[in-house]
C-alpha cells in the first residue's frame, strides 16, 4: 500500500509542477463555461419573423404582440398574402413565418381547435428548432393564460426543450461542458501522462520494478479522477450561481453518474496510451478520436435528430451520448435512477469493456 | 608566415553570474586538425557556438577565416561546415536527397550538387546507398556521410562536435582518415571528442576546464609536460587540477 501511495503522490507532484497541465485542468473549465455561457449561447434574440394574419382579430393581434414582446422576435414582415411571405423566406429576410388561419380568432373563442401554421427556415436546423420552441412555448403560455380549455394545434413543433421552460441555452451547455471537460481531463490527460513516461523512459524503470501493471494504472488514474470531480463541482457551482442553472435531481446520483463517466473516460485514456508510445499521437487520438465525436455526436451542439440515420446509430456507441442524456435528465428534469437505469447500465457496460481491454492491452514489457 | 584560420582573443561568455567561457585565447592554422577537449560542462559547446556565430560573446574578439564573429556571422556561416553527434542528416531523406538539400543550403547550383553527389558517393564507395533512407544506414556510415556533406561546399573550417560518439572502432578510424584527407586539402578541422585515442590524431589539442583553456599543445608535448603515457592520463591530470 505504501508503494501505491508513493506513486499517487508522485503523480500529484507531476501535475502541480507543470504549469501547462494546471492551466488545462483548471483554466479550461472556467474559460469554457464563461465563453459558452455568455458569448456563444444558443439563445437567439430579435430573430426576424414574418406574420401572415388571415384572421386579423383581437386574439391574433394579442398573440402577435405577445410574441413581439418576448424579445426573441422582431416583426420584419407583416404580409398580406402567402406569396410575399414566401419571397421574404427565399431572400432570407425572415427566419420564421407564422400564418394565422382565417378562422383563428373565432375558433379560439369557440374552443374549436384554431389553426396556426409555423414555418421555420430549416437550412439552419439549430436556429429553426430553437425558434419553434420559443414560439410554441409562448403560444402555450398564452393559451393557459386565457384559461380556455381549447387547444391550439401547432404544426411542425417539437417539445424538445419542454423542461427548459425559460428557454435558456446555458442550461444545455452546463451538462455539455461537464461531458467535454471530463473527457478532456480524464482521457486526454491520462493518455498523455502515460505516454510521457514512455517517452522519457521512466516507464521502462517502472516496468522492471515489482509494481504490478494495474497498480501503476490505478495510481495514475486516481489524481485525475480526483481532479475531474473537482472540475465537475466547479462547473456545477458556476452554473448554479452565475447562470442559475438548477440541479433538479439528486446531487448524490448526479455525482455517482459523473464518477461512472470519469471512469469510462479514464479507461479510454489508458487504452489510447497502450496503442501508442508518443505523447503527440496520444494527443491527436484524444482530440480527433474522442473529443470531436463527443462534441459532434453527443447532442451537445448539434441535435442528433437532424443527422443521417447511420450517424445516429453510430452515436450510440459513444458513451458521452448516454452520459449527456443522464446528466440532462438529472439536472433539468429531476429524474431518478428509475428513469435513467438503461442509460446508466449502458455507460457502466462501456466502462467495464474499456477498462477490461486496457488492462489486457497494458504491456508488462516494452513490446 | 602561416595562414591563420581561427583567431580568438580574450573571448568570454557569461550567463547571469555563471561564466561559461572565461577569457580564452588561441589560434588555429589553416589545415590544422585542432582537438578541442574538456570535461562535460567545461564550456566547449558554448565556445563552439560562439565561433560558429550562433551565440554572441559577452566580451573579447574572434575571427573565423578572417571574419569578425560579431559583425560577419552571415559570412562565417557560409565559410564553415558543421556536424555533431546529435544532428547530422535527415533520417527520412535518402542519401542523395540529403546531399541535395545541404548543397542547396550552402548555395551550390544544380550542376555543382550533381558533381558533389557523385564525388561523395565515389569517395565513400557508397553508390549503392544513393537512394537509401539515411535512417536505415548504420550509425558509423551515417556519420561518415554527414562529414562528407559538412564539407560539400569546400568550407575553410569544419566544426565537428563529438562526431564519432558510439561509432565502432573500425568506422571511427575510417572517419579519421576522411578527416586527414580534408585537412591535407587545406580545410581546418576543429573537433571535440571523448575518445582519448582520437585526441592523439590531432595536430594540436586544447584542454578546457571550468571555462578556461588549461593547456594547449601538441599531444606529444602535452604527454611530456604532464609526464603521462597517453592522453587519457593527461586529461585526468588536467581535469583534476594536478
Amino acid at each position, binding site marked *: 500500500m505504501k508503494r501505491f501511495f508513493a506513486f499517487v503522490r*508522485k503523480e500529484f507532484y507531476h501535475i502541480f509542477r507543470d504549469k501547462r497541465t494546471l492551466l488545462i485542468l483548471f483554466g479550461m473549465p472556467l474559460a469554457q463555461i464563461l465563453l459558452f455561457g455568455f458569448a456563444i449561447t444558443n439563445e437567439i434574440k430579435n430573430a426576424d419573423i414574418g406574420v401572415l394574419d388571415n384572421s386579423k382579430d383581437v386574439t391574433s393581434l394579442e398573440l402577435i404582440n405577445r410574441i413581439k414582446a418576448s424579445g426573441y422576435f422582431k416583426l420584419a414582415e407583416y404580409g398580406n398574402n402567402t406569396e410575399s411571405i414566401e419571397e421574404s423566406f427565399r431572400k432570407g429576410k425572415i427566419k420564421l413565418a407564422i400564418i394565422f388561419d382565417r378562422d383563428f380568432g373565432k375558433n379560439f373563442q369557440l374552443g374549436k381547435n384554431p389553426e396556426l401554421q409555423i414555418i421555420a427556415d430549416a437550412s439552419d436546423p439549430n436556429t429553426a428548432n430553437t425558434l419553434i420552441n420559443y414560439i410554441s412555448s409562448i403560444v402555450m403560455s398564452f393559451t393557459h393564460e386565457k384559461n380556455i380549455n381549447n387547444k391550439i394545434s401547432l404544426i411542425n413543433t417539437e417539445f424538445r426543450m419542454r423542461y427548459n421552460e425559460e428557454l435558456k441555452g446555458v442550461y444545455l451547455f452546463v451538462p455539455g461542458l461537464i461531458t467535454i471537460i471530463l473527457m478532456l481531463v480524464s482521457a486526454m490527460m491520462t493518455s498523455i501522462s502515460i505516454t510521457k513516461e514512455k517517452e522519457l523512459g521512466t516507464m*521502462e524503470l517502472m516496468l522492471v520494478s515489482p509494481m504490478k501493471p494495474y497498480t501503476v494504472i490505478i495510481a495514475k488514474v486516481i489524481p485525475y479522477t480526483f481532479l475531474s470531480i473537482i472540475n465537475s463541482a466547479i462547473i456545477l457551482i458556476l452554473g448554479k450561481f452565475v447562470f442559475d442553472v438548477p440541479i433538479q435531481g439528486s446531487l448524490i446520483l448526479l455525482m455517482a453518474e459523473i464518477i461512472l463517466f470519469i471512469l469510462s473516460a479514464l479507461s479510454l485514456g489508458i487504452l489510447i496510451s497502450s496503442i501508442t508510445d508518443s505523447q503527440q499521437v496520444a494527443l491527436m487520438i484524444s482530440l480527433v478520436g474522442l473529443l470531436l465525436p463527443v462534441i459532434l455526436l453527443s447532442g451537445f451542439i448539434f441535435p442528433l435528430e437532424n443527422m443521417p440515420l447511420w450517424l445516429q446509430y453510430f452515436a450510440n456507441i459513444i458513451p458521452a451520448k448516454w452520459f449527456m442524456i443522464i446528466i440532462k435528465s438529472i439536472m433539468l428534469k429531476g429524474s431518478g435512477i428509475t428513469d435513467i437505469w438503461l442509460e446508466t447500465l449502458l455507460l457502466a457496460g462501456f466502462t467495464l469493456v474499456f477498462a477490461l481491454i486496457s488492462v489486457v492491452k497494458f504491456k508488462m514489457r516494452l513490446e | 608566415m602561416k595562414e591563420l584560420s581561427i583567431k580568438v582573443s580574450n573571448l568570454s561568455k557569461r550567463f547571469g553570474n555563471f561564466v561559461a567561457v572565461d577569457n580564452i585565447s588561441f589560434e588555429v592554422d589553416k589545415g590544422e586538425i585542432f582537438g578541442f577537449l574538456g570535461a562535460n560542462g567545461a564550456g566547449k559547446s558554448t565556445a563552439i557556438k560562439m565561433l560558429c556565430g550562433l551565440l554572441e560573446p559577452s566580451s573579447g574578439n574572434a575571427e573565423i577565416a578572417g571574419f569578425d564573429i560579431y559583425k560577419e556571422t552571415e559570412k562565417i556561416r557560409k565559410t564553415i561546415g558543421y556536424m555533431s553527434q546529435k544532428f547530422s542528416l535527415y533520417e527520412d531523406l535518402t542519401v542523395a536527397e540529403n546531399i541535395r538539400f545541404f548543397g542547396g543550403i550552402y548555395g551550390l547550383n544544380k550542376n555543382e550538387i550533381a558533381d558533389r553527389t557523385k564525388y561523395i558517393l565515389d569517395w565513400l564507395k557508397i553508390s549503392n546507398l544513393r537512394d537509401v533512407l539515411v535512417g536505415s544506414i548504420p550509425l558509423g556510415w551515417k556519420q561518415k556521410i554527414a562529414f562528407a556533406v559538412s564539407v560539400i561546399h569546400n568550407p575553410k573550417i569544419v566544426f565537428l562536435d563529438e562526431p564519432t560518439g558510439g561509432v565502432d572502432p573500425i568506422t571511427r578510424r575510417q572517419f579519421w582518415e576522411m578527416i586527414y584527407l580534408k585537412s591535407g586539402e587545406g580545410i581546418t578541422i576543429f573537433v571535440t571528442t571523448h575518445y582519448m585515442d582520437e585526441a592523439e590524431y590531432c595536430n594540436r589539442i586544447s584542454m578546457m576546464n571550468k571555462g578556461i583553456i588549461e593547456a594547449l599543445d601538441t599531444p606529444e608535448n602535452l604527454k611530456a609536460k604532464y609526464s603521462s603515457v597517453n592522453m587519457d592520463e593527461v586529461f585526468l591530470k588536467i581535469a583534476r587540477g594536478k
Partner: protein
Amino acid sequence: MYDIEIKNISKQYGDVIALNNINIQVRKGEIFGLIGPDGAGKTTLIRLIATLLVQNKGEIKALGYDTISQFQEIRNKLGYMPGRFSLYQDLSVIENLELFASIFGTTVEENYNLIKDIYSQIEPFKNRPAGKLSGGMKQKLALSCALIHKPELLLLDEPTTGVDPVSRKEFWEMLSKLKNMGITIFVSTPYMDEASRCDRIAFIQAGEILDIATPDEIISNFDDKLIAVKSDNKYKTLQDLKTLNTLRYVYPSGEYIHYVDSRKEYSISGIMEILEQKGNTNIELKLIEPNIEDCFMKEMMVRANERIIH
C-alpha cells in the same frame, strides 16, 4: 553459480536480426562487460535480461529465474539503469530516490550504507529537480535509484556514454566498490578502454558475440605480430602501408599506426626500408603488445573480410 545464463538467444525486430544465437554466462559477484559499438545489440540484450523484451529463440535465466515465466521474481531483485537518463525530471533528487525506495517496499534509510559513497556526492543538491543536474550528477542519481532496494544483480546499459573521462573513471571506481559488496554487475559500454575494468568481457558486433574471456586472456590470445609505426606524416604513411601486398590489416591507433603483416616471419626493417623509399621521414617502427582495442579490431577485421559490409 551463474547469476545470468543466456542460452541460444536470438531476437528479431521484423526482418532485422538484432541478436543472433547469443550464449553468455555471468558468474555471481563478477563485473561482466558487454563491449561493442552502437547498434551491436547491447541494449536489446540488456532489456531481454531485464525482462523488458521477449526473445524469439533461446532462454535466459537471471538469478536462477526464467525471464519469461518468472519475471516478477527477477524484477524484485534487479537493479537496472537504462541507457538514457530515465528519472523523473520534475521530481527533486530526494523525491526520486524516495519514490524508487517505496516502489521496492523499502526506505532510503534502510539501504543508505549501500549508496552512501555515491549519494553523498549529490546530497548537497537533494532538493534540486533531477532535470537540472549536470550529466555526472544525473548518472550518480540514476545509479543510487537503481541500488536503493539492494539488488543482487545490477544491469547497466552504457552508463558512461557521453560522460567525460574523469566522470567515467569515478564511475568505474564506484562499480568496483559495489562488486566488493557482493553485487553482480552486467555492464555494456562502447569504450574499449573500459574493458580492463571488468572481470570478464564479451565482444559484441552486429548481433553476434565475437569472443568471451577475461581481458588478460583476450590479450594473450592475440597471436599476431603487432607493429606500431609513427612518422612525420601519419596520413601518408597510413596510405603507403595500405599499398603493401603483404598487408593483413592496418589502422591508426592513437599517436601510432598499428600494422599487422600477412607473413608470420619477416623483418621489421624491411617495412622500414619500403616506407623510406616511398618518401616517409622520421619513421619510428616497433613491435608492441596489443591492447583490448587491438583485439577487438582484429576480430572485427577478420570478420569484415569474411563478409563485406553492405
